[in-house]
């Protein structure tokens, strides 16, 4: 928004009333999806075709065009794949409610998910059942299942820790039901859930195949509650992929900037108020944020760039020239160039205090049809991983309440989850530390 817009309250001008009206009526949302929040310029993007949980490649960086036999990301490890893993082009977020009727059934369910995820992420030949059953595999990926860069990331919602399974005393300290932030328009049927599966792969059919496989194997134990599919755009023309507002989104990944960063920003550690089993997990936030793209496309470029704080074409901060230039707020202390309420400035003013609030973002664009008025349902599945939900996501989100951008977005779904520690070896299984 233009600097004058900052004075809306005192001096409403023609055209502004409408936005103010929408703002109040719809309660357009807030989120931290859009601009960078980094104090450290990220390493150059590296192609993701090599299997690695390398910390050098921002998760927003799309995998280079992978071949069908792209190597698998390792399934076993202290942490789950799909967190530090460079974001594959396609992702789906599927929340389930548990229908397992006992802790034993829940344990069985977790073992089944583990077994299917282990197979699907490695790829291989499906079982052969002869004439004794329908084919166990859907065949969607052909006779030999390719790994195709698939990651299966399993997270639990706060509701798992109610009285059903005797786990109340073991809840991750910060985990709770996602609150309604002031500009949210959450549909609770599209929020929350006991289990979140984040499936990501180089191609969409791989995700469809994996979800069908896991759902078939887990029938009776859990039911889909909500789902959102997303994609990461290729670089246009270079650098960080763009979101559907046309801006580069996820320019910097401080949580990956140096090898020790994930330990400070991503991985939750046992001890203090946290139960022992959480070691190596991460608070996983998903916010499905509708973008009111028709409205946005009627806004001048100048106003768009002022709201974000970056150039749309280059992704550079308004105080800089190139995408990865530091915004140098010290040279712009009163917001003459990058407004004080610009998204990137509110999200992270680059002060040492806010450095520890940076989260690992791993978002996906979505394009999901139309609403009742014929407007396109475009938006962002904002996803991020946090060592401490409160210190990071929630703190930043609160700072973004009523940012100018809030009029053009509307958070509709998502939830707070805890990404489980990794499955460490062949005999280990998801949530073993919690349930064993």
């Amino acid at each position, binding site marked *: 928004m233009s600097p004058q817009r900052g004075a809306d309250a005192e001096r409403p001008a023609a055209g502004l009333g409408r936005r103010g009206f929408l703002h109040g009526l719809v309660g357009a949302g807030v989120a931290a999806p859009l601009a960078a929040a980094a104090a450290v310029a990220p390493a150059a993007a590296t192609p993701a075709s090599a299997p690695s949980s390398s910390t050098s490649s921002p998760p927003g960086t799309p995998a280079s065009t992978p071949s069908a036999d792209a190597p698998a990301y390792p399934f076993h490890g202290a942490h789950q794949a799909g967190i530090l893993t460079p974001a594959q082009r396609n992702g789906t977020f599927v929340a389930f409610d548990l229908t397992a009727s006992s802790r034993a059934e829940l344990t069985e369910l977790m073992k089944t998910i583990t077994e299917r995820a282990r197979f699907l992420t490695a790829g291989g030949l499906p079982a052969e059942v002869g004439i*004794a059953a329908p084919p166990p595999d859907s065949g969607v990926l052909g006779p030999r299942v390719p790994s195709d860069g698939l990651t299966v990331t399993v997270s639990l919602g706060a509701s798992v820790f109610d009285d059903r399974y005797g786990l109340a005393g073991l809840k991750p300290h910060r985990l709770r039901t996602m609150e309604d932030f002031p500009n949210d328009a959450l549909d609770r049927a599209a929020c929350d859930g006991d289990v979140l599966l984040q499936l990501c792969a180089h191609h969409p059919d791989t995700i469809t195949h994996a979800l069908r496989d896991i759902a078939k194997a887990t029938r*009776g134990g859990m039911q889909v509650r909500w789902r959102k599919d997303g994609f990461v755009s290729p670089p246009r023309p270079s650098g960080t992929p763009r979101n559907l507002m046309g801006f580069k989104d996820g320019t910097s990944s401080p949580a990956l900037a140096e090898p020790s960063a994930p330990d400070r920003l991503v991985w939750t550690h046992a001890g203090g108020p946290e139960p022992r089993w959480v070691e190596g997990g991460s608070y996983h936030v998903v916010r499905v944020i509708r973008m009111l793209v028709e409205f946005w496309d009627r806004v001048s470029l100048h106003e768009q760039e002022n709201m974000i704080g970056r150039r749309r074409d280059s992704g550079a901060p308004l105080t800089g020239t190139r995408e990865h230039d530091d915004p140098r707020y010290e040279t712009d202390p009163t917001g003459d160039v990058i407004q004080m309420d610009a998204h990137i400035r509110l999200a992270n003013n680059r002060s040492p205090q806010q450095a520890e609030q940076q989260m690992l973002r791993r978002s996906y664009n979505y394009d999901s049809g139309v609403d009742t008025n014929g407007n396109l349902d475009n938006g962002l599945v904002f996803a991020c991983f946090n060592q401490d939900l409160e210190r990071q996501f929630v703190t930043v989100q609160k700072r973004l309440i009523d940012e100018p951008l809030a009029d053009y977005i509307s958070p509709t779904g998502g939830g707070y989850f805890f990404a489980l520690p990794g499955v460490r070896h062949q005999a280990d299984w998801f949530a073993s530390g919690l349930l064993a």
Partner: protein
Amino acid sequence: MRRAAQYGMLAGGIAAVVTLGVVCTVTVRQGSEARVAHPDAYPVTAGISGCGRGWSDPAAGTQTFDVTNTSIAGMEVYLESVASGDVYLDLEALGAGSTTRGRAIIPAGRYRFVCLPADEDPIAGPTVTVTGVRRVADATPGIPPVTENDLIPASKQYGAWIESRLPVLQADVDALADDVASGDLGKAKADWLTGHLEYESLGAAYGAFGDADEAINGMPASGRTALDDPGLTGFHKLEALLWSGAPAAEIAPFADRLSADVAGLRANFPNVRIDPLDIGLRAHEILENALQFELTGAADAGSHTNLATVDANLNGSAEALAPLRGILKPRYPQLAKTEASIAAAQQLVESYRAADGTWTPLQSLTTAQREALDARIDATVELLAPVAAICDVRRAAS
């Protein structure tokens, strides 16, 4: 269209039994201890002569075959255990000259291919000894194929059960017609439910009763409701009329028509049979139907009795499964679990029936209740799916 719809109800007598032929077994001595590297796939011939040629020196584990039909007609090929006759692989409808790939994961033992040319006797290939371990991971289950002969008693038993229920159904719909004729629409609603549940337990899913089902229990055409579809007759038309407060005079012709249609089904039924091909499918298709039309509420024309229908469908599934028990017991390790799952699902569904016999509307269930119910039915139908695969009619290998 599902196969059940095609085979649903065939006029005529019992199909001819497959003629059994003489089997010629050739045992080939494994000539050498020397291990040859496994090819990606063994090229195997399936012909009138040379059935199973090309599979040699196999070791326990995954066997991949590229099977070529070298005959001039269609062919089916089994891979079977010589000792037990259990089948591990069935390549069906292999056209003359064509090649298709099959795999089986098998432990050490003696096996052979059996080639089953269309309209000719089966030909057994040479016995091949698979060496190595007696247990392999993820082994392919081998089971004896189910033949039409195996299934005929089951289909007769199932058909007899349906036939025994038709007079009950007739009495139900006649009572309904009487209620409407006398103007007692309250009683008509109760008798409608009794009759509808009776019918829904008979396993008419996916057109198994053909045109009779369309007349008795059809759904409105696309874009129409049960109330405004002029071509609709049967239970759902009556449901729409009864629960929308239509006058008795408007309902009466449809009630009489239902009585007549049930009488037609009943009159025709002794002359028809449940096709043996159909009975295995029936076991899971009844519940597939329930998932698609009842647990979504799609079939509701106003009575909000979907849960009652699901209960009747579960009854119907159990009745379709019961005649297959003897066939399934040696072939399906999950049979007991399947039966327990049906029972558990039924117990859960019936928890929504009040003491006075009324049912909770599906729409009144909480999300958690819906999820628990869907999960229970999903798990049950998943367990029932192998029943159809196992009971697919196959030729005897000898």
